């Protein structure tokens, strides 16, 4: 389990992961907040449907792709949580919508 080791400096922010409200710390990236919430996986792959979770935390590996406020394929480790943000898992391949 990932747990906080210090009191931190910022306040709390709330966002939604799969529709449920999650409390995070101001300054957390979406990926960090999801791990702190106890989740390890954020998506399944388009190729085989295998589960994947955040891996590099610095924008390199693209494993932490999620949908944020309706925009798919966002790097969760590169986006800082904002109040009310709507974050969704990405299951399998994207569907093209005309």
């Amino acid at each position: 389990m990932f747990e906080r080791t210090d009191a931190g400096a910022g306040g709390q922010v709330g966002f939604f992961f799969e529709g449920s409200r999650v409390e995070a710390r101001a300054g957390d990236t979406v990926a960090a907040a999801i791990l702190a919430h106890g989740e390890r996986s954020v998506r399944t792959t388009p190729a085989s449907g295998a589960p994947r979770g955040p891996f590099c935390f610095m924008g390199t590996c693209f494993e932490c792709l999620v949908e944020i406020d309706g925009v798919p394929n966002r790097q969760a480790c590169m986006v800082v949580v904002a109040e009310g943000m709507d974050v969704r898992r990405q299951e399998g391949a994207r569907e093209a919508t005309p």
Partner: protein
Amino acid sequence: MRRVDLAVIGAGPAGMAAAVEARTHGLSVLVVDEQPTPGGQIWRGIEAANAARLQVLGDDYAAGLAAVRAFRDSGADYLPGALAWQIDPEGLIDVSVGGRSRRAAAGAVVVATGAVERPTPLPGWTLPGVMTVGALQILLKTSGLADDEAVLVGSGPLIWLAASQLCEAGRPPRAIVETVPCGRYLGAARHASSLFGASDYVSKGFKMMRRVRAAGVPVYRGASDVRIEGRERVSHVAFRTGRREHRLETACVALHQGVVPNPQVARLMRCAHEWSPAQRCFLPRRDRFMETSVPNFFLAGDGGGIGGAKAAALEGRIAGLRVAEKAGRATGSGYGEIERALKRDLAVRPLLEHLYAPSPEILQPADATVVCRCEEVTAGDIRHAVSLGAPGPNQLKSFLRCGMGPCQGRVCGLPVVEIVAAGRGVAHDAVGYYGIRPPLKPLTLGEIAAAADDGEELAAE
């Protein structure tokens, strides 16, 4: 369109130092960085770190505060949260900020995009719960998060640094599994001559190891045959030491095999590269002023070859000074002192490169191991395609889609080069690397369309 004397890509030690140096000579400087705050990965989150966190992360981390302040005070225009997604040889740079793209024109460009962790293809490395040691450290730096189940696996100074920081934070890792062959520590004695001038780094290394030992963390030395097990997520990590089999239960495995230059921008620019047997990766060719084979295009810091934060800042200064000199704003003096400091700081590298050379099992993974995580291509798939005649990484794309997923070869690039070189029995230089093309990261079509007819200036906030 915004015009500047110098554009710097990346606000880590090298980028900040280049910007500060160029500003000292009166150049106009634009700094573009993907992170929300300056410092790069090494000093990530430093401006927000409170006293407790600075204590946990140590003096070398806290030293970044002075560098960040000097950068903030330099008068360089700083664009955080900004992605330079295209750079052309004339110095035109397309930058995306907050979903909008703007263009800048720079007389010179210093790329300071640093290092990435060497990819570590091992059985089970795609399971949720597996991450890199760098990732563990970033979580501690930016969010104060730690997992006391973490098992750190691999080789390199970062393993000991991260582990000692986790101990200091009161969350020692469950174990360290070091894949350094035991004989290497003896072989490292051959590099004892490099210890002169590097004793500071060596004593820091021993101090970190003692800190971890004192916290009671089990350390398995000389490990090999690493396998990560689990169904939907990690449950165990198995490995061998000598003839003994081990299997540790954990939900968190952190892998590391050293760091290598982040090649994306230099490859985008078609800079000439050469294979470095010592660093086991390609390095962009540079002159003594950090200029690449593309005129007025400089590369400073770990992106040009691994040297660490202090060396990176020195290289940034050299590049910034050279840009000013070429612009007629500085004389050609002043390099000597910086170069001497750089040479002293790099004295420890041959020792580290020998001691922490990557494990054979990640350089030549087993056939069943996934190498391209995005498209789920295995080492065996790649070997088969090579046997059918695929000569290099770019042809493997057509054969296997390898390197064509979301990360665009950032993770599989080096392992693919290693497998092809071994399969064909040729030098790495003959294999080459993925062709990197813009945009460097995905953009929406709407953003590109809006950028085409927008005359609005790119400006710092």
